[in-house]
């Protein structure tokens, strides 16, 4: 008879190796999205910041409208608009210090230009004259990323490398609600937590992955809760509240910068327009739903606060509008010029040096181009 078989003699104890690794309580997000606009707490917000956010939001909305118009004129191949999500985009762009890095998804052109990237260069991907139009190192902005969530581990690796080197660099990685279902999202969070990498994950939950609503995407209590399983604190924020977004992002960036490790932020927002100009949103959602979100508009929320402080003067409105119109006019003008294309560029950056096979193929294309030119001259 073994000890296990003696009734009453065996008291199971936890296996010695097991112990809780992290207290989950501080990692849990709030029950409700964090808000400042429309609450008493917004009184502490700096008026300069409010005005800056206002100007950027107005400019951002105009940029989205102009880019969408450019798709109709055939000047852009496609544009995934962030109309309705400008507060997330602008706050992301503004929360980072100069030396920090932004890892955007394809819908984050606004955040990219808020970082200082040239608006036309930011649209190169969507215009289709190349894949990335800007030098990522120049503004510390990674290429706009199309494969969902795959840029998140890059952000973790870069932040980790910077920390190993002793550099003061934080990486902010942006992803959508659909992207949180991808494996790379989970692997990135896990690596970031294990390495305590100085990285901030911003999930813009805009309600839809193209046509699929969040209810079909996840059974999690919130997307912010997804951090808890990895030992990462989750923050739930009203993504249309630019002031709250700015505060939460700034805090998370600061936490990362001072060795506190990664944060997962879920910004609850709404994609007011279709997925892209090629999508028909009426097939999967009602106008009433869209209207309800239009009533919770990020610009109007901010205007309300500015107005109640007496800051929304005619001058402020005019200045913001004029700056936005000038930006749009300049964008129109520059995008109406044909892109400079050199077909031989196709072979220029496949490898550091062309393989003999690519040399042969480049010579073939060169000959085809010369023949085209000759034929045109003869005509």
């Amino acid at each position, binding site marked *: 008879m073994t000890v296990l078989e003696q009734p009453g003699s065996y008291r199971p104890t936890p296996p010695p190796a097991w112990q809780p690794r992290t207290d989950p309580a501080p990692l849990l997000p709030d029950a409700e999205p964090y808000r400042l606009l429309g609450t008493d707490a917004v009184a502490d917000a700096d008026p300069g910041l409010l005005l800056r956010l206002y100007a950027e939001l107005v400019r951002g909305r105009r940029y989205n409208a102009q880019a969408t118009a450019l798709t109709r004129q055939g000047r852009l191949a496609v544009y995934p608009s962030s109309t309705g999500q400008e507060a997330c985009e602008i706050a992301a762009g503004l929360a980072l210090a100069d030396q920090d890095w932004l890892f955007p998804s394809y819908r984050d052109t606004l955040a990219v230009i808020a970082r200082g990237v040239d608006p036309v260069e930011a649209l190169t991907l969507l215009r289709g004259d190349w894949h990335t139009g800007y030098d990522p190192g120049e503004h510390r902005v990674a290429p706009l990323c199309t494969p969902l969530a*795959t840029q998140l*581990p890059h952000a973790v690796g870069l932040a*980790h*490398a910077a920390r190993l080197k002793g550099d003061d660099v934080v990486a902010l990685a942006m992803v959508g609600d659909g992207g949180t279902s991808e494996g790379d999202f989970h692997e990135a969070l896990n690596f970031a937590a294990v390495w305590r990498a100085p990285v901030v994950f911003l999930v813009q939950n805009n309600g839809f992955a193209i046509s699929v609503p969040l209810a079909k995407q996840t059974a999690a209590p919130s997307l912010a809760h997804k951090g808890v399983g990895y030992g990462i604190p989750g923050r739930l924020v009203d993504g249309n509240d630019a002031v709250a977004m700015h505060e939460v992002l700034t805090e998370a960036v600061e936490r990362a910068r001072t060795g506190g490790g990664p944060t997962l932020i879920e910004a609850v927002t709404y994609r007011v327009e279709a997925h892209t100009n090629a999508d028909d949103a009426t097939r999967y959602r009602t106008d009433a739903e869209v209207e309800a979100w239009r009533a919770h508009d990020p610009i109007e929320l901010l205007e309300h606060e500015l107005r109640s402080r007496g800051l929304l003067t005619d001058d402020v409105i005019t200045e913001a509008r004029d700056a936005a119109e000038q930006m749009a006019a300049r964008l129109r003008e520059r995008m109406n010029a044909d892109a400079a294309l050199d077909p031989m560029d196709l072979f220029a950056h496949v490898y550091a040096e062309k*393989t003999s096979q690519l040399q042969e193929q480049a010579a073939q294309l060169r000959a085809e181009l010369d023949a085209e030119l000759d034929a045109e001259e003869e005509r």
Partner: protein
Amino acid sequence: MTTAAIPTTRKAGRKPASMAQALTSALRDAMTEDPTVHVMGEDVGSLGGVFRITDGLVKEFGEERCTDTPLAEAGILGTAIGMAMYGLRPVVEMQFDAFAYPAFEQLISHVSRMRNRTRGAMPMPLTIRIPYGGGIGGVEHHSDSSEAYYMATPGLHVVTPATVADAYGLLRASIASDDPVVFLEPKRLYWSKADWSPEQPEQVAPIGRAVVRRAGRSASLITYGPSVPVCLEAAEAARSEGWDLEVVDLRSLVPFDDETVCASVRRTGRAVVVHESTGFGGPGGEIAARITERCFHYLEAPVLRVAGFDLPYPPPMLERHHLPGVDRVLDAVARLQWEADWTSEPGRGGAERIAGGAH
């Protein structure tokens, strides 16, 4: 199963070294010379890797430069991309061929095209080491030859050594390369030995050059990695049949050395491509097509392929029936239309049997 290494001339005072030791030396020397070289992967730390290739590195360079990562290949390669974006030179270990598949999207959608996407602003100086191929009695998912997937992805270099000296030289070159290199290590050659000194590693040909391992006049065996020793053994066995076979070790599948391969085939007039990877859609089809396109008028016979059968890698007790061995290579050589001699190129082809041949 052939695991014998390729013999080299013995130099005074040298001891035999294994391919595994040469690979370890290459990693250690690269890390010593270049502080941006970081090794990362599953079990590469205190265990030294399941094949012990990273043995001792964590002790010498610390956990920050030889890092045991979480068990997630897309995460390993994805974070390595970010590290490369910040100027590091990561060397990633994928534990086994088939364990590299979760990292495919990172490899294909990012590693291979980051330089191209950014017009050269963001090169990817990454080395992805993958132990590959069969012949070690591995159970399911431990013996794949996955090189065709990598070859089909523009932007990657695909390199595979067959000798101890090449293991060191090609790995050093891969780590030094500003392009991403998929470095395929033939795991059944890990314990093959040759006369090689870690203190005086000899210079080897650069990435992109094939090397003639055995000169011959009757036919060319075009091969790489674990099949190189098989082909050398076949070439020795073929002597009694009256064939003097040339063996070309490709060493690098991308870039592909058309020049050396075609020069060999033009000399011999006959070619067999030999690899473990499945034949259909495998590397041999590309190689045979390239030879045919460039050497058609020199060929006495169709270019033949000896490859793994077109099936999922078999269980270990059956793998010997799957892997191209000496007999299968010789059977292919026998089918090279020896009765034909229609290119009438003097001093070559079927007419040029070595004396005493039984055929």
